[in-house]
């Protein structure tokens, strides 16, 4: 007598995704394309031309040049690489640490839950940016450090999502059923529960990607991110901010690209979670995952 019976026996036609989603996807594709193929493009983010410093956008330099006469657009394109690599690495780290923590805490409960969640609470109580800065202080300033710092800041959100999902799933009959077959705890955690929470975790990956990009940029903006001369959006904003009078485009254009990237991730993440929430008429987690077959 469940509603789902009626709904799920037939797969419904899904409406076309909204325009914003398509634009976002398009924009991200361009950014990712640029980041991946930056090396083969005929651009050099490091080539200095001190005589031509701080020139406004023109035919030869679409985004203008920076204080060392480097092409801002080239730096924005290579900056995408920095941002995306850092964000991707950070999200992977966050997931690799956070998900097992959440799984163990949620599945076993008891003292393990208490200990792990206290740890997560501490991480959570410290604002992300401070946590990341503290870690960078320990690790020294480098891309790896930024990546780890942003990753650790993302651990709590993965842990909590995983835990919350486990807590609901653990109650479900199909998990009890698998448990009833006499399998080990790790089998249930990693073979039964984990695949079932992959979809919400995937959404979290997308959501966290935008958070990670933002956090990475914020760190660079505060001067502790990926060190120069490696191009980085946040660093460009940081430097650009001190040339607001001479060269307003310097801070504005990279900021625009950064903002659009974040917005795109956000839009895509939202669309995905809408697709995951059956109540908003998308489908079931299972459906999204197997969109292929």
């Amino acid at each position: 007598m469940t509603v789902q019976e009626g709904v799920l026996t037939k797969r419904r036609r899904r409406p076309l995704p909204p325009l914003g989603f398509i634009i976002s996807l398009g924009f991200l594709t361009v950014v990712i394309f640029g980041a991946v193929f930056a090396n083969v493009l005929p651009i050099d983010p490091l080539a200095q031309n001190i005589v031509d410093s701080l020139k406004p956008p023109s035919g030869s330099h679409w985004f203008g040049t920076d204080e060392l006469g480097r092409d801002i657009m080239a730096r924005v394109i290579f900056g995408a690489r920095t941002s995306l690599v850092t964000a991707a690495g950070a999200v992977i780290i966050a997931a690799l640490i956070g998900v097992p923590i959440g799984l163990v805490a949620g599945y076993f409960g008891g003292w393990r839950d208490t200990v792990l969640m206290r740890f997560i609470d501490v991480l959570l109580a410290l604002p992300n940016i401070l946590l990341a800065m503290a870690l960078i202080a320990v690790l020294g300033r480098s891309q790896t450090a930024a990546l780890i710092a942003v990753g650790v800041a993302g651990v709590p959100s993965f842990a909590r999502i995983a835990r919350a999902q486990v807590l609901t799933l653990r109650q479900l009959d199909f998990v009890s059923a698998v448990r009833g077959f006499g399998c080990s705890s790790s089998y249930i955690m990693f073979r039964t529960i984990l695949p079932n929470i992959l979809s919400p975790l995937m959404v979290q990956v997308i959501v966290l990607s935008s958070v990670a990009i933002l956090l990475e940029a914020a760190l660079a903006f505060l001067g502790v991110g990926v060190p120069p001369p490696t191009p980085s959006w946040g660093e460009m904003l940081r430097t650009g901010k001190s040339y607001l009078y001479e060269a307003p485009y310097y801070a504005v254009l990279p900021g625009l690209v950064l903002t659009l990237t974040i917005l795109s991730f956000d839009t895509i993440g939202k669309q995905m979670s809408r697709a995951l929430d059956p109540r908003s008429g998308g489908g079931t987690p299972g459906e999204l995952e197997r969109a292929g077959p």
Partner: protein
Amino acid sequence: MTPLLNVRDLACRYRVTGKRGETHWLHAVDGVNFTLDAGRTLGVVGESGCGKSTTAKLVLGLQPASRGRITFAGEPVSATRDSHWRAMRRRMQMVHQDPLAALDRRLTVGEQVIEPLIIHGLKGGPQTPRERALALFDAVGLRAAMFERYPHELSGGQRQRVVLARALVLDPELVVCDEPISALDVSVAAQVINLLQDLQGRFGMAYLFISHDLKVVRQIADEVAVMYLGRIVEQGAPDDLFHTPAHPYTEALVSAIPTVGQRDRKRIVLAGDPPNPVDRPAGCAFHPRCPRATAICRSEVPPLRPVAEGRLAACHLVPAVSARSAAA
């Protein structure tokens, strides 16, 4: 002959936190005794929250009991998750209420039927896991073509068949069914009831069949136990028990069932709500709602004792018969 399942003085309590943060003990199951022979069906009925599901979990060793002893085919059942416990899983299985919830939406139903075999490392043997699963698909009346489907692509009845096939794939001796048809439509429920009976006829496993629907229990069970607030208050053959209930609670329960056939039947409507298991009434737990309660009911807990041929009841007002005649 030792019974397949022997439950003695089983009890289980949960710790619950009260309104002001104080701890209470909720006695979900409180001294349950019964036996179940191989190949037989024991039906358990009772209102919501009376401890049916808890009993089921205790019997399967999915949850530790706070008191009592369970033996399965002569071996004690414990809830410690050791290799013995795991091995025991092969011999006892559970069927849940909502078949959709009991299946992993992410795996094909075929994979899920095979899963227990994989977990128990039963990959070799005379049949491959796939052959074995297909044979069971056949037995529960599913076409082999459905093997590759996902749970949401099946109907409710078909899903429950998958759940049954999965429960049977390890060849268990006991299947605990916790309200296996409550989530199904009337017409589909009938299919599953029939199937359960047929499978028992073919494979000979015992059922512990839990339901709040007396009519379904009567249809399927060889013996019925009526639970009230964590205890069995009456037990016996279904027809006898439902036609001539001995315990006042059973009587009220039976009379409360709206039936198609009889209109304007005299109903015993119990006053009040089912009591809170956190603060059990003293004496007979049923006394606050019992139309016939007397002083002794308020003070003394009635034991479950034979009251007629093959019938047990826990009520002070029902005269006991001698142990000998009960055993006959």
